[in-house]
């Protein structure tokens, strides 16, 4: 147990966290296979109105983290340990029907691929009103004007007509807007967005991110933003958690993290994103290797084989997540701060 329950001290001090995840561990068990721990002792806080990023490469456990919090992991074949305290209640310990009452009302989620995330045979309007019917006890007729206003609010033109449209009749950007409308229908206090822009064109991506930013600012909704793209994080998040191999390796306030990444993985991620202000033709440097090279966290730093500056300890000992002054770091040989 290296990732002990630590209390992150970033965000807006003085405010109680809205969601507090402690030591979240998700292990998949399949018959005839080794158990696989996809999320390994993850802890983080989300304060009301705050936007928190979960960043990392494909397969590092971002989606599993969010699905575990939402209670949406498959019913069988996995174990979830730890706690996710929302407003004083541990969501992970809730009976399924109580969690069902909260999903869509207290916590909502939007997903990566808007087309496949919408039901193809149901009109957009009903996919919005059904949330209101469920959690607000509204009649479908009464919910319709509200659904219309929601579509309007997320910037869908001609919302009256769109209510009766089917998902395939909308553009990709509009579909994601519709999903956002559904998620915000009951004014949840927490929204989890799992790579909401990955499946969209670059120009649309920017629009959707701007919309999300506006909406969370307007409504005071806290946002957990999951992405593999630090560029997305840059414009949106107050605090960033960097995940590697199922564990948080670095956490910090956005500006600090960007200005002075301490974990070689974070610094590698930063070096690999194209920057508008960078010199033209400046080479992008991807992180060498892949997650397939990971060492087991139990006896080493999983990132060591891909690290640009490993020391001997890295392959012999598990680094702990050390907290200091609002930052957290899991590294034996951090990047020097050059300032």
């Amino acid at each position, binding site marked *: 147990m290296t990732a002990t329950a630590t209390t992150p001290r970033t965000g807006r001090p003085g405010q109680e966290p809205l969601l507090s995840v402690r030591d979240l561990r998700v292990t998949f068990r399949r018959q005839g296979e080794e158990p696989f721990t996809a999320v390994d002792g993850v802890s983080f806080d989300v304060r009301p109105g705050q936007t928190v990023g979960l960043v990392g490469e494909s397969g590092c456990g971002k989606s599993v983290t969010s699905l575990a919090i939402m209670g949406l992991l498959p019913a069988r074949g996995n174990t979830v340990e730890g706690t996710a305290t929302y407003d004083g209640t541990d969501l992970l310990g809730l009976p399924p029907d109580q969690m*069902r009452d909260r999903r*869509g009302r207290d916590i909502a989620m939007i*997903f990566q*691929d808007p087309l*496949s*995330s919408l039901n*193809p045979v149901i009109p957009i309007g009903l996919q919005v009103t059904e949330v209101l019917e469920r959690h607000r006890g509204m009649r479908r007729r009464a919910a319709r004007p509200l659904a219309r206003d929601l579509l309007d609010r997320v910037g869908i033109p001609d919302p009256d007509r769109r209510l009766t449209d089917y998902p395939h009749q909308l553009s990709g950007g509009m579909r994601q807007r519709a999903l956002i409308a559904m*998620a915000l229908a009951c004014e949840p206090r927490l929204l989890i967005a799992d790579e909401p822009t990955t499946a969209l064109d670059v120009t649309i991506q920017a629009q959707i991110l701007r919309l999300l930013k506006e909406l969370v600012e307007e409504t005071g909704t806290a946002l957990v933003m999951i992405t593999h793209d630090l560029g997305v994080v840059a414009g949106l998040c107050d605090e960033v958690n960097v995940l590697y191999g199922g564990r948080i390796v670095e956490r910090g306030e956005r500006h600090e993290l960007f200005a002075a990444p301490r974990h070689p993985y974070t610094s590698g991620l930063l070096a690999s994103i194209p920057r508008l202000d960078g010199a033209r033709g400046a080479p992008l440097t991807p992180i060498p290797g892949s997650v397939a090279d990971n060492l087991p966290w139990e006896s080493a730093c999983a990132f060591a084989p891909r690290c640009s500056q490993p020391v001997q300890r890295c392959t012999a000992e598990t680094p702990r997540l050390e907290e200091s002054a609002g930052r957290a770091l899991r590294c034996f040989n951090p990047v020097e701060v050059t300032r």
Partner: protein
Amino acid sequence: MARFIIRRLLQMVVVVFVLSLMLFFWLRSLPGGTVSAILGERATPQTRAALTKALGLDQPVWVQYWRFVERAAHGEFGTSTRVLPGADALDIFLSRLPATIELSFFALLLAVVLAIPLGYLSARRAGSPLDSGLVVTSLVGVAVPVFFLAFLLKYQLAVEHHVFPVSGRQDNLSCTRVTNFFVLDGLLTREYDCSVSALKHLVLPSLALATIPFAVIYRITRASVLEVLGEDYVRTAESKGLTARVIRGRHVLRNALLPVVTTIGLQTGGLLAGAVLTEKVFNWGGIGNALADAFEGRDYAVLQVLILAAAMIYVVINLLVDISYAVIDPRVRTR
């Protein structure tokens, strides 16, 4: 939509024309033939020749075919030589139709009503003993020959133990006939004992006829629900906290039923094959019986009408399937 339906109906005309041509030549190339069937093998060549001439079978086949088309255009499909000698072939078909429709309807109803809920349940509990048990049952269902099953049911539940009647469509109750759908007639005329008797007679043949459609529809439902359960939009529905009932009905079943509807259509078309055998075992007196009798007696006129009508029914059912597809799936509708 209207254009789509018209196009399909035109396709049907082509299908029926080509089929009639093939059927006509194929029937006449069969060994035996109408004349031997009527007169037996020992008739003198003179009598044979006379009958052959009387039936118009001495003409070249393409002349016969042309005559057939000409008369068919006027709604005449020839007279029966064996099933009901001298009767109009079309009349035979029409009078036998209600029996077969009633049987097929109940068989299909039975299959659908059992297969869809069980398929759904199986998928929800994939890998459980219930699921495995049902999968094996459905495998047995497709593997057992209908004829054998019909015979087994009849022997066990009608002959050995008198739970259900042995054969026929109804006890002799002197019931009033309205539509010739016996269950319906009983309801219409308030002769409820007639309906009950007809239902009792329907149980075993429907059961026998339902097995294959049940097994196929069950398997398709199971597979389809399994696939839909893994879809992103089901996860979205879960993330909205919708009740299990809404997720099941609105989000899972509606999508999962698309391939099932096609399957039901195909199975309906395929019922005729099973009906021939089932009707024979239970002496049902429907199209299946007529088809078997007509084939044995080389009753060309009846065979032609029955097979062409079956083909038309098949095409119409497929059209209905496509229409219902468009009703369920908006992506098809707007295309």
